[in-house]
């Protein structure tokens, strides 16, 4: 459990708190993106092995001796997809908010309550 994981969790909790308490739609989306970044931090930090470098092959890291110089590559790979997906979801949320504003003209989550019971 490195510092970064703890920081990641902290970010998740902040994002969660923001998403749950703020009424404004944008703040909710912000909360979501904070949660996403928190999770990404956790993912990356879990793959970290002390004293190793990032699993990117370039000039000074050849594939042959990479096995004992790089951190666990899989979380890093996963985090890439996760980030992309997080981005897509946030984009979609923003589109939703724009459409909702165009229809209802309000950005308060509590105004979209016709569908209930």
């Amino acid at each position, binding site marked *: 459990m490195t510092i970064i994981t703890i920081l990641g969790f902290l970010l998740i909790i902040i994002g969660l708190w923001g998403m749950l308490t703020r009424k404004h739609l944008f703040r909710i989306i912000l909360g979501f993106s904070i949660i996403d970044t928190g999770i990404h931090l956790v993912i990356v930090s879990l793959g970290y092995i002390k004293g190793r470098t990032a699993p990117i092959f370039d000039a000074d890291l050849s594939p042959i001796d990479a096995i004992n110089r790089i951190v666990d590559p899989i979380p890093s790979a996963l985090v890439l997809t996760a980030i992309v997906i997080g981005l897509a979801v946030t984009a979609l949320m923003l589109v939703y908010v724009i459409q909702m504003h165009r229809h209802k003209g309000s950005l308060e989550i509590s105004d979209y309550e016709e569908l209930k*019971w």
Partner: protein
Amino acid sequence: MVNPIYIFVIALFSAFLLPVIDKLGRKVTLGVFYLSLTAIFAVTLLWFRAFGEGALIENIFTAGSLPPFSINLRMGTIEAFIMLFVNFGALLGAIYLYGKLLENKVYALMLFLTLIMGVNGLIMTRDIFNIFVFLEITSISLYALIGIKQDARSLGAGFKYIIAGGLASAFLLLGIIYVYRITGNLNLDLIISENPLLLSKGGLIALFLVVVAFLIELKPWPANGWALDVYEAAEPGISAMVASLVAAGMVFVFYKFIPLLPHSWHGMLILFGMLTFVFSNLTGLKQKNARRLLGYSSIAQMGLLMAVLLLVRRFNDAMDIRYALSDIAAALFVNHFLAKAGLFWLSGIINKEKARDWSFNKQPVLVLLFAVFIFALVGLPPFPGFWAKWTLITKLAQYNMIGWIVPIIIGSLLEAAYLLRWFGATIKREQTEQVIIPRYKILPPLLAAIVLVIIFPSFAPYMTGMKTMFFFPLLAAAVLWLLDVMPERMRGMVMILILAAFGWYIYPLAKGIVLIFEFMFIAGGIVISLASLNSARPKQGYWEFLVMLIMSLALIPLAKSSMEFFLAWEFMTVSSWLLILRGKNGEKPALTYIMFSLGAALLILTAFALSFAETGELGLVLLSNLNIYAIPVYILLALGFLVKAAAMGVHIWLPGAYSEAEDEVTPIFAGMMSKISLWGFILLFGYMGNKVLGIFELPVLLGWIGVFTAFFGALMAVFQEDIKYLLAYSSMSQLGYMILSVSLLSHLGWTTALYMSVTHLFFKGMLFLAVAGIVSRIGTTKMYEMGGLIKKMPASFISVLIAIIAVSGVPPLSGFGGKWLLYTALIEKGWYLQAGLSFFAGAIAFLYLFRLIHTIFLGQLKARFREVKEASLWYIVPQFIFVGAIMAISMFPNLILKPIMAAVETQFPSHVNWDGYTVITALGYWNGNAVMMITMGVFMVPLIWLLVRVNMVQKVEQFNIVYAAERPDRPETTHFAYNFFAHYQKAIGFLVKEQITNFWNSVSEWFHSLSATFRHIYTGNGQTYALHIIIYIVVLYSLLGVK
């Protein structure tokens, strides 16, 4: 075989090709779009057929290398089966959305394809991170698809969905990464093989995070407000996809993770599943909006499916894998998948917001589709839901998890309540404007319905050892429905021929008591349905339900296994309910009837399940050697049959059902359907004899219930103003006598019961037919509006006169035989006070019978009935067949007594001996023939004396009466009929105030208010829903005791 990866390839390739092709015109793009969907479906079909021939499970590794670096896709039987339905559903959904896809931009097509790919991916992939990716693909394409409807509500719903979906995927991601950190790889199969590793310190939390994410996707009960909004607001085509495809994907993913779950978690998850099932159905009771109602129903079904998936793991007998559908979960899934998609498509076609505005009873296609889907969801016989529930409850009982049967029963009863209420209301509402059905929109529900019906034979494993004749009612109904083109009377004739042929077919199978019941049902059915030939106007669906009812009634006594019994019982319930629904204002009584009957059916089902649990087979004969569950099975069966017999306390459905059904159908209800409960009791006492619960001997208790039913039935009948209500209460009272005599458990007792049931069929059939004839001529059923009809309808008068003499038990006719047998049996058995009370009930019966014949036939003839003609011959002929039968029985009682006594001999030793026509018992003797002769003689003497002096008699009209030297002014004011027994009402009217109806109304009222309180947790605010999810997770976390 085609590599399943092609599914992704086709989907992705055409998804990104479409915008380019779109330049050439939308028609072409749609062509390509449907082509690719059919291709995907073809692939899955190939795979499914391969597995059909026993192919092995295929594991496909992408990127040419082994996990953890490559994604592993698995294509097994179950995957193929689920994908088959998913892709079939996708194809239908696409066809349904043709109109929408035509006018929208091309992105909708692309999104749809990605959605399908996502769901297929979810099902096939074994890599957990890959599950996350495909989950996200599906969710994102869904978010977008929900958005295309572009109105405030759907956008709001979409946004709430994204919040919930986002939270779920967040937890999933965390869970996956921790699982990876602990187990070191992402492949599910490998993780399952290293299961103990996962149970180490951190593993449980990781597993919990992953599982809870899937749980949220499965829309668990308190935290599923967002799902309801999506179902309600989204485009019907899309919500159909959500309800069927996406749900299928989610359930399958959850199914994949079950092996990982530690055993301690199973109980809690099942509980949560059951809670979702029960409470969603409960809140469904108060729903007004059609699609939201469907939303509640689909959430409930998902909850049930989740619970079943976990429960099935505990039944450790290997399911015969070859028949995929034999698996309870698979059957439930198929049933829900097709029915729910179909209903959403229908709601799209009808496009009415409020469930109350649905009215299309003039369009048979829509009615049929709606009926198929509702019946499938409620779990009525031919549909997979029925077999699934049957096997589930029997299996639960077998592995003594009886506790879980209770929520299943309550949940399915609640679901039946609101679905059938909706169905009844829709069918009965007069259709005002025509519903326009575009061709492409009707095709998907049609195909779904067809599939729902034709997959029927694949339930072969359930029907082991069941004779095919138990499907004849359905077959006959289908045949008659196909003959719709023939004129009505012709169809009626065909129906009677079918009945006769069926009778001839089952004749050899019936012996002893069963033969008596078969005679009653078949012969009685044929004679009574003659009356239904009277009118030539088309009766939509009348003959089908009638033949189904009579044949299922005839089948019940022939049932050898409890499955056969229960199947025939359900057919009877459905057909009788539909017949009541046909009545003019039959909606409310039909709902009460179906609720009570379904309650009774479920009681019987649990009883059979318990007996199956103890004995291991389904045979009815095994009821006799139960001992652990003997008492509960006994009580449950007795309760079920009491509800069917409309005993005191559960009788409130009877008057409404009998009088609102059509006039020609009521004799069948009163004369025959009520007798099936008598057969139930004979079955019960025959096999299980006398049982003692605490200090009470159960048959004695039943006897008392029978007597009170007889007494209160008669008392209520006396104060009725409507003929059909009066006769309904009268048949309830007669049935009370039969219950009393059958629970005597003595030879004489059973003889009385059988004798009474046969004679009751005759005279009750006659009375109701006569009433049908009168009402067809007069138009009203209110007795005080009639009067003096003896001059206009003499034939009906004669049959009613003979009927009331027979019912009241006045000596010369057959009724007295029944009464004599009853009292001798009661006194022989020592039930003295019951004898006294039943005598008093008999005397009261005399009151309402006289009231019936006086108010209709005697007294003053009203002016507007002066030209009324006699009832049509179709009514008179069956009545006089019954008159002949009653006269024969009264003249020669041993015609019917001897066979009955012989039949009952098999159960109880008989100590009744015969001397010529005299029946001699230890107590008394009765010579029916002599009584009839003497009565005839004694009747002739004064008649001759009067006929001698007849020439000086002057025939006069109705107003030549001594009216205190005044002339009577109007027939209406001189006919005494209204409130005929006012003094009786004053004296003991307080006994029959509406306590029991109020009780049952308050029960339903209580359920409704409970449902109202629970549905208020969905406040509609997206944020509150998110809060609900978090709380749900925390509660689940603490309850599962994850360390």
